[in-house]
């Protein structure tokens, strides 16, 4: 599954941050998962834990905490704001999966419910994000 690649990115960024902050041990990794990318949080955490075991000793015991972030879209043409979850109801499973791989593909398959424009921005909840790390 391609989530593995993103999980590797989280671990690699956490390690970089730990080195920057001169941490000898990372105790907690806080991750935000934007709804647009449609990643299962529990699955993502289990992948992260698997990678943490082999990446670097200072990350091995880190607890991983994730928060799901609702995806909000805003039309650049008419200013209408709406939730991705509303648009998702009208997407086929195949189209939703394509957005899962590359969230910007939302512009191909989603239109503003008010004016039908594809010209919108994702103001919140695009994808996976390393919020912070904690440690000593």
């Amino acid at each position, binding site marked *: *599954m*391609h989530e*593995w*690649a*993103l999980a*590797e*990115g*989280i671990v*690699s*960024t956490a390690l*970089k*941050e730990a080195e920057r902050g001169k941490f000898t041990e990372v105790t907690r990794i806080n991750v935000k998962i934007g709804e647009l990318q449609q990643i299962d949080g529990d699955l993502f955490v289990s992948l992260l834990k698997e990678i943490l075991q082999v990446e670097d000793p200072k990350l091995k015991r880190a607890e991983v905490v994730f928060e799901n972030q609702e995806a909000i879209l805003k039309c650049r043409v008419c200013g209408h704001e709406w939730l991705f979850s509303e648009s998702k109801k009208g997407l086929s499973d195949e189209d939703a999966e*394509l957005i899962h*791989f*590359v*969230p*910007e*593909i939302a*512009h*191909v*398959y989603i239109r503003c419910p008010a004016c039908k424009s*594809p*010209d919108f*921005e*994702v103001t919140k909840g*695009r*994808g*996976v*994000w*390393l*919020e912070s790390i904690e440690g000593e």
Partner: protein
Amino acid sequence: MDPRLTIIERRLKDIKRIIAVSGGKGGVGKSLTASVMALIFSRLGYKTGLLDLDFGGPSIHTVLGLKGALPREEKGIIPPDAHGIKFMSIIHYAGDNPSPIRGIDISNAMIELLAITRWGRLDFLIIDMPPGIGDSTLDVIRLLKRAEFLIITTESRVTLDVVNKLLNLLKELKAPIIGVIENMKLTRSSFLSKEIGALDVPFLGEIDFDSGLEDAIGNVDHILGSYSKDPIC
């Protein structure tokens, strides 16, 4: 923190050379040149990847006559094989639909593809750049620090003006420049080679306009046949 940025270098670590085929203007033959280079490298036995970064107007798949080739998931995305080349493009996800994507979203889509694509060991990764000196050029310079730029132009003064700006930008940002190729040459004029020479950039050669090339689009053997008859001068 964006977790994708730190992983890109790891995704590219087993690639010996990264060549960004650029040119500033559209319609000068970047996609065709990128495709032919990738095909020739592949047929010479080099492991080759081809990345279409022209999200607004992807065309490599048309040049190579590809239909239905899809990436597969394996701890990331493995590009499909296209005539012996590992090929990655937004068309794998957008299909034949238009991709009305703005600057910041273009950057995000490009970063996503670079972060999740597992190229494996390659001798060459050829990148077909979009026209313009905008987000994609800046992102390639920022994220693919080993990328070497191959500039395609025509003999038009209009095109040369944009190429000048691109070359100045690349020099300022200390991005490696392989050189300039004059494509679709219609006259024997040496105007362009002199202009490029004056900029202290290698002028690599000229490719004559090939009136039969359009009929070869989509047929790899015909494209390579056409090029072998009219090699780079």
